[in-house]
């Protein structure tokens, strides 16, 4: 902690605030924050309603807290699985080469060339039953793993040429442990960036789907909050507390993740003594 740089400190601090907001605060709220007409509508921020109330009679603060929770869950689920699956397959392909590489590349490329948004909309339409958040997360994972896979395959290809990998190979290490121990440290920086970005992509895609009515608009997420605020012209009507809070929350979460990521990179570079 003592030696953390400003970026790392700021990033972790903001993240902590959001995590507390999303995962601790909702525990203290008795009702369901998405219930309509629970409070008088369109109140400006005050002591009783920190972020005011919405045109639907919800308390914006509690709604935001719950939304942050759900969006975080989607974002982290998607980013984690997409990055891990992508990294493993990409590195495996790049390092193993040959038939394995061909197969994985073919698979990755086929996924990459399919434009994701139309398919997301299509799949959204396919959902006849309940568009659960988990399902949306699953679809987003399906569309987000090929990116890191392709990128990391390229990185593995050039890493493969390096001496130390040859050394590791001749010393009889297994492919998997070479990937994990020798190659991964070199691509960890990029993977972290991808992880952070995928969190944002996931939150963003969900809100994109929400805007066209394809997410589950009855669940509180940052995306659906924007959707409802837009539906009720919060921006033109000057209800900034409603439209502003999810937008600023998304921006801050991302900035916090970014600061944490770059701060950590600086910190670990220093620790390695470079």
């Amino acid at each position, binding site marked *: 902690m003592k030696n953390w740089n400003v970026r790392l400190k700021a990033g972790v601090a903001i993240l902590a605030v959001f995590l507390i907001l999303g995962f601790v605060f909702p525990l203290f709220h008795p009702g369901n924050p998405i*219930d*309509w*007409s629970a409070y*008088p*509508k369109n109140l400006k921020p005050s002591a009783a309603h920190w972020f005011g109330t919405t*045109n*639907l*009679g919800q308390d914006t603060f509690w709604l935001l807290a719950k939304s942050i929770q759900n969006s975080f869950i989607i974002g982290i689920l998607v980013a984690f699985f997409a990055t891990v699956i992508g990294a493993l397959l990409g590195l495996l392909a790049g390092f193993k080469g040959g038939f394995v590489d061909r197969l994985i590349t073919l698979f990755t490329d086929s996924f990459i060339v399919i434009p994701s948004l139309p398919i997301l909309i299509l799949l959204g*339409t396919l*959902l*006849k*039953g*309940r*568009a659960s958040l988990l399902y949306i997360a699953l679809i987003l994972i399906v569309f987000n793993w090929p990116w890191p896979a392709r990128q990391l395959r390229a990185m593995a290809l050039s890493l493969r040429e390096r001496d130390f990998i040859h050394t590791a190979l001749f010393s009889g290490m297994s492919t998997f442990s070479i990937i994990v121990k020798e190659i991964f440290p070199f691509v960890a920086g990029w993977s972290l960036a991808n992880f952070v970005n995928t969190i944002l992509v996931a939150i963003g895609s969900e809100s994109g789907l929400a805007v*066209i*009515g*394809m997410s*589950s*608009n*009855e669940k509180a997420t940052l995306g659906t909050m924007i959707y409802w605020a*837009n*539906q*009720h*012209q*919060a*921006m*033109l*009507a000057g209800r900034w507390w409603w439209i502003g809070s999810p937008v600023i929350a998304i921006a801050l979460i991302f900035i916090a993740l970014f600061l944490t990521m770059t701060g950590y990179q600086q910190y670990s570079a220093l620790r390695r003594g470079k």
Partner: protein
Amino acid sequence: MRRNRGIVCWLLAVVLLLSACTKTGGDAQPAAGGAGTGTKPAETGQPASGSGGGKMTDVGTPRSQTLIVDILSGRSADPDRMNPYVPGAVPMDSGLHQLIYSNLWEIDTVKGKQIPDLAATMPEPLDNTNTKFRFKLQEGLAWSDGVEFTADDVVYTSDMLLKTKELGYSGYYSSLVKSMKAIDKTTIEVETVQPETRLAQKLGVVIWGTAFRVMPKHIWEKEDPTKFKFTDPVGVGPYKLSKRDPQGNWFLYEKRQDWQKSDIGKLVGEPGPQYILFKYFGPEEKRIMAAISHEMDILQDITPESWDVLRQKNTFAKAWYENFPYADMNDPCERGMSLNAAKAPYDNPDVRWALTLLTDIKNVSMATFGGMLRASPIELPPISVLQDNYHKPMTPWLKDFQLSDGYKPFDDSYAKDMVDMLKQQGVKGLPTDAKEMTDTFGVGWYKYDPAEAAKLLQKAGFKKQGDKWLKPDGTPWKLTINAPANFEVQSMRLAFAVADSWRKNGIDVNVQQMDAATFWDAESTGNFEVGSYWPACGLLPDSTSNFQGWHKKYIVPVGQQAPGNRNRWASDRVSSLIDELNGLKSDDPKVIQNITEINKEFVKGMPFIPMFGTSKFVPVDTYYWSGFQTSKNEFEGPWWWWSQFKYYTPHYKPTGK
């Protein structure tokens, strides 16, 4: 070479700009393209400096002579396609059927009756079989390319529809009309397949428009009607298409020089605007911004929140009413919850009634449209004409109406309660006397009574576990409401509001937003439990045609396309009442009696929980144009996306700004 061209362009631009600056100082001619002179809009660029003085639109017409109208259905993918008969969507409401195409019979929504348009008379039966009719056409009308309009055009259109099976409308038309022939230039005789008592309603306009649009024979006979694009549409209406955006965002119409020979010129008078620009500005936010900055004169279908913004930022903007509820409430389809009577447990009227009583209608109204809604307890929309004919006369019956256990569900204090509730929220200009309240908020609705609903549910075998309901089979009661995704805002919001109300009472409700194709498909094939559909329409006191579909003969199993009766609710009494209605003339006093009886059956069975009439926020900007219809100047309803738009145009006058 190319370099020189660039320089020339630059010089030209500079010269034009200079000339524009000097001219404005001199004697500006604001009415350069006055009525009838037919000045073409500036052919080449530089619209801002084209014809001296006055603001110009971005399509190069003087703003003071251009009426700008919102396009309800948005951008056209193929703006060259104007053939109304090929299946699929033609940008009909981007001015095409409002200003160019004309129909045999139009509708006067204020009086609630049909009026002749291209036809001069209503169809007269030739014998008592009700299968042979004769009507006359207007004389002295001409197509916008100058060719005379005659009975041949009508007959040609009819023959084409009967012959060309590929046309989407052909199937329906063939089931209706056996043949049509011209007796002379202005007389037509029709023979129908079945006995018809309401031919004018089926071939003319009742709501919005009609599928039977008369096409010019002299153009169409040379084309293959299944392939013909009709890129330069020709009609009998008072305007012609002058320019269009290749991207389909706008269509510019110009008044015909021979407008006297158009249907409006003959029947009403000279249209006011020289140009009418139908334009799509984009999503609601942008349309509002355009209206605030006086770039759009007529807005279509916005949300109450947007109207609030517009009202506060543009003092020239006017809605139907001066004060609350602002919106026009005379839209001919009411909104509510459609229940699928073919699916358990919604096949049980007690369950349907329980859901009705679990609906906190006042909160639903607030959440849906901020309380700017008129409630309807019956199967007909609460528009003025129908309120007088049905809602009000039926109120005593509704008050006495009892459920099977003797419970009286009706509550006539809805209007008064809404006024009180809105007053508390600081809304001004609310109605004060009882009649005014009823006219605004409706005759009343059903009580919000979870206790009685619980009784009904328990009777139907439901059990309450904690605060959740279990279905008779012991599983939790989960329910999906189908709702439109991003069209029909009111229905969509209503679904969420009702879901909120039901959810608070222990039902696990999920709202499924669906795009148009899936949404309609689910309704017609019966793949829904509850849907925010609108199967209750009506405009004329004789709403027989609107009830046709509820006949039990149209019920098909779930999974199949239903020709009608999508709720799959079988009522012998309703069916026999419909059969009886089909044999009656439209003006027979028994018609209203029968329809009232049908409505009583609907209240008892509740296959569709009627809730609200549709509130349309269709504001106008009185900055450049005056004479718009409002509640104070009600020569027509504000139906700018209907084919009767052309009837409004003679009332509109420039303000001179």
